[in-house]
């Protein structure tokens, strides 16, 4: 493509160099008093050589990051229909609450009597999570969804160990449609992973599942609603069967937002489930974290929960931080250990509780209903030109395959990239793996009908264009984004993971 402007800039899109290329390494954006230089007790390990850190003044810093920000898509700009990712509105009240000095400016190792309100907040959030899931216990410390999975699977491992069966129960079942974190987590806990086939409706094949059970089963990992956006109708039969076989039921709670306030996982036989506070309870995704993944436990796994946990005695909150303090095994307490330093993602706890208090139980249930209604509305509109992967209604996300693109030369990737030029972030592509050329759309409850009409209108136009044979337009997309398609193959083959100074004149010679 020919260069449109002399500068490479395109009006509001300004090209921005790396900080390493514009700083002379002496500038700074902070004013600090000079050290006296009188005392040093660095014991002979003072850092003498140059570090290589560029600095910028405050206005330069502001401009650098504001220009970068303008190259990002965000939920505040438009629909972010990533299936299984739950990009819902992030209320700014939550941000304000997390920045109250009483929450943001307290240290995890201050004396308990100086942080009673923080412990009260954790306890209150824990109550909400237990109540919404119908589960008796929750571990608050997991730092993200996958960390919560680890928490759940470690508790299962510990429970099996207590039963003297950890050496024999080594196999975990998970559907092929599961998130990659499920098998990765199971493997990290030393389990082998065995796939459960799906039936033609996109759900677990109950008979095939039963046939896979045996005396070596540690448990099953099921996402419900599943990653095809469908509720596993046989969920009670699945949990009964795995319990009968002596295993445990781990539920991946990534899609809990579809049923929060409507149904309780505890009533479905779940033994452990992580909750993504950054999905269901609106804490910001922040360009990829931080997340937060509290994990609820059934009565049978609760004794193995990790430290720390918050307890209250006569209106005074206490933190139980060490294994010694959890009580003796005679009391039935057998905590599997510690998952992280300190007490978990407090900043996310504050935001999640602000969301819950704002919604109330009525709002949480309404949010689930609206999310499911929005997904079905999108499904109903798009089926005119696109091909749903399965028959029937969906839960909070709708799944399409690439049959409607057959013979057009346009692939799912091209279709997604064309959405970028239309001003939309693409849906989740090529996941779940069980559907060819999958496109998974999760609108969430945050989208208005007007916004969904525009979105579906754009997708229908694109589908018609693909069928009309305009394949070149798709393969060239995106044309209007800050960058066009990037060469990911070379990036992986010859990784450049950091800036290095350009060679000096002498080195070039």
């Amino acid at each position: 493509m020919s260069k449109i402007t002399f500068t490479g800039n395109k009006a509001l899109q300004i090209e921005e160099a790396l900080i390493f290329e514009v700083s002379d390494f002496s500038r700074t954006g902070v004013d600090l008093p000079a050290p006296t230089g009188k005392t040093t007790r660095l014991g002979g390990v003072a850092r003498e050589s140059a570090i290589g850190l560029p600095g910028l003044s405050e206005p330069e810093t502001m401009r650098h990051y504001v220009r970068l920000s303008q190259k990002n898509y965000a939920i505040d700009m438009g629909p972010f229909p990533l299936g299984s990712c739950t990009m819902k509105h992030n209320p700014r009240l939550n941000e304000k609450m997390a920045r109250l000095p009483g929450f943001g400016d307290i240290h995890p190792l201050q004396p308990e009597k100086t942080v009673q309100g923080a412990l009260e907040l954790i306890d209150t959030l824990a109550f909400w999570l237990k109540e919404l899931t119908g589960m008796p216990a929750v571990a608050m410390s997991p730092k993200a969804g996958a960390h919560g999975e680890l928490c759940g699977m470690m508790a299962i491992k510990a429970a099996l160990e207590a039963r003297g069966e950890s050496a024999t129960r080594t196999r975990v079942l998970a559907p092929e449609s599961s998130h990659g974190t499920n098998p990765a987590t199971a493997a990290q806990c030393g389990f082998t992973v065995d796939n459960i086939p799906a039936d033609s409706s996109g759900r677990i094949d109950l008979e095939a599942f039963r046939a896979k059970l045996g005396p070596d089963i540690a448990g099953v990992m099921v996402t419900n609603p599943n990653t095809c956006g469908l509720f596993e109708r046989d969920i009670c039969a699945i949990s009964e069967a795995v319990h009968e076989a002596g295993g445990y039921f781990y539920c991946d709670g990534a899609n809990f937002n579809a049923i929060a306030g409507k149904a309780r996982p505890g009533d479905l036989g779940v033994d452990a489930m992580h909750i993504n506070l950054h999905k269901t309870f609106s804490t910001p995704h922040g360009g990829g974290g931080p997340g937060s993944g509290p994990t609820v436990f059934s009565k049978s796994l609760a004794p193995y929960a990790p430290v720390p946990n918050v307890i209250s005695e006569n209106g005074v909150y206490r933190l139980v931080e060490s294994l010694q303090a959890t009580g003796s095994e005679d009391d039935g307490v057998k905590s599997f250990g510690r998952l992280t330093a300190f007490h978990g993602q407090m900043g996310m706890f504050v935001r999640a509780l602000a969301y819950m208090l704002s919604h109330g139980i009525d709002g949480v249930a309404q949010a689930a209903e609206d999310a499911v209604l929005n997904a079905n509305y999108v499904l109903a509109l798009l089926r005119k030109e696109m091909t749903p992967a399965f028959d029937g209604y969906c839960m909070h996300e709708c799944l399409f395959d690439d049959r409607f693109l057959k013979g057009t030369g346009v692939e799912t990737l091209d279709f997604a990239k064309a959405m970028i030029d239309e001003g939309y972030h693409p849906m989740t592509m090529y996941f779940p793996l069980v559907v060819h050329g999958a496109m998974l759309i999760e609108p969430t409850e945050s989208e208005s009908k007007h916004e969904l009409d525009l979105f579906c209108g754009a997708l229908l136009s694109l589908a018609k264009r693909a069928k009309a044979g305009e394949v070149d337009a798709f393969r060239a997309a995106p044309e209007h984004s800050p960058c066009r398609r990037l060469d990911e193959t070379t990036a992986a083959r010859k990784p450049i993971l950091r800036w290095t100074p350009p060679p000096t004149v002498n080195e070039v010679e």
Partner: protein
Amino acid sequence: MRYLPLSPADRGVMLDVVGIATIDDLFADIPVSALNAKFNLPEHQGELEVERSMGAMAAKNRAAGAGPFFVGCGAYKHHVPATVDHIIQRSEFLTAYTPYQPEIAQGTLQYLFEFQTQVAALTGMEVANASMYDGSTGCAEAALMARRITKRRKHILSGALHPHYASVVRTSLELHENIVVPAPIDIKGTEDLASMIDAETACVIVQNPDVFGNLRDLSSLADACHANGALLVAVVTEAISLGAVKSPGEMGADIVVGEGQSIGNALSFGGPYVGLFATRQKYIRQMPGRLCGETTDIDGKRGYVLTLSTREQHIRRDKATSNICTNSGLCTLAFTIHMTLLGENGLRRLAMLNHEAACKTADMLGGVDGVEVVNNAYFNEFTLRLPTNAVEVVDALADRGILAGVPGGRLWPDVPEADNLLIVAATECATEEDIDRFSVALGEVL
């Protein structure tokens, strides 16, 4: 409900389009037994009511900025420039997803590339990833990585590694036929870890400055590791120290993990923080976590993408290097903005201000009757041996408005020799007056 755009009329129209009579039809797959739950939870509230009840909880806590404050041990009170918090709240950063569509996520990707470069420089290593959950989980991942590289199962932990970090390593590794060998508690930084290394050793994990504040030269330990085919994992829980102290890379570390909270991030009662993770180029394919790499687009323009994802769970599933599926995005952004504002000179100056504050505090407190400073060399944190149980002293000082540090009994409840220890951190936030008040009050409560 202020967060829900659909009106009752919209819902009616949409139900018609879907072709159903009531919303309940869409929940028909859920067993009825689970649908009739009664929740003991309140109804929705306006902003004012939520602010009131949450504000009341916040008011029951004593903020670090409310008075003399000397608590550290893996989380530190530093001043964060106003610019940092402003930028990270921009919608395009705050409400973006993981940059899986790089054409419309170059903002996130470029700052990650800059972050990786800054962390590599700071730690003295060749490459860094886009961050881990925090320092402690990064520490466990480093041990697992050492096992993948060396194919050995034994991991030696320094006796001056933060006890929470040691617990996380043990919890994560013992699942998996690893042997974790913790050295005895090492208050003075004099342990001999080199003699514990053998042909089965995957790595030695050592913290610098250590949990008691001692500074160490890790060079000879690195040599001992390498002579036996083991890796040295260096842990840094106070990132500001790297502006004054020789980097772990310069001392021969193979993997450096760190807690980056000190730079750009609030204390926030322990999280979210940002785990730093750096290593040698030759080990990148064994690294956990997200990596951002440079490439070009089809017009030849420079751009950035997430790369080497064949290590990761969404591609490799049960064969992945880790189950981690995120980084600490926004905390990473806060870190890199603050680091950019500081620059080399600012960081060095800030580090020396911290060091001088600690030296001054140690001199004052060491002058109190019956109090002994344990350390010879330290950065911004040191350990006092008190004539009495430090938990009670900290409690009594809290009643006088002073948050004095971390008592040994909090971190080592089962080690009697730690009972009288008090670990004290002093940063640029500690004023002369704060230090005076602390030393006077300490004299009074002892």
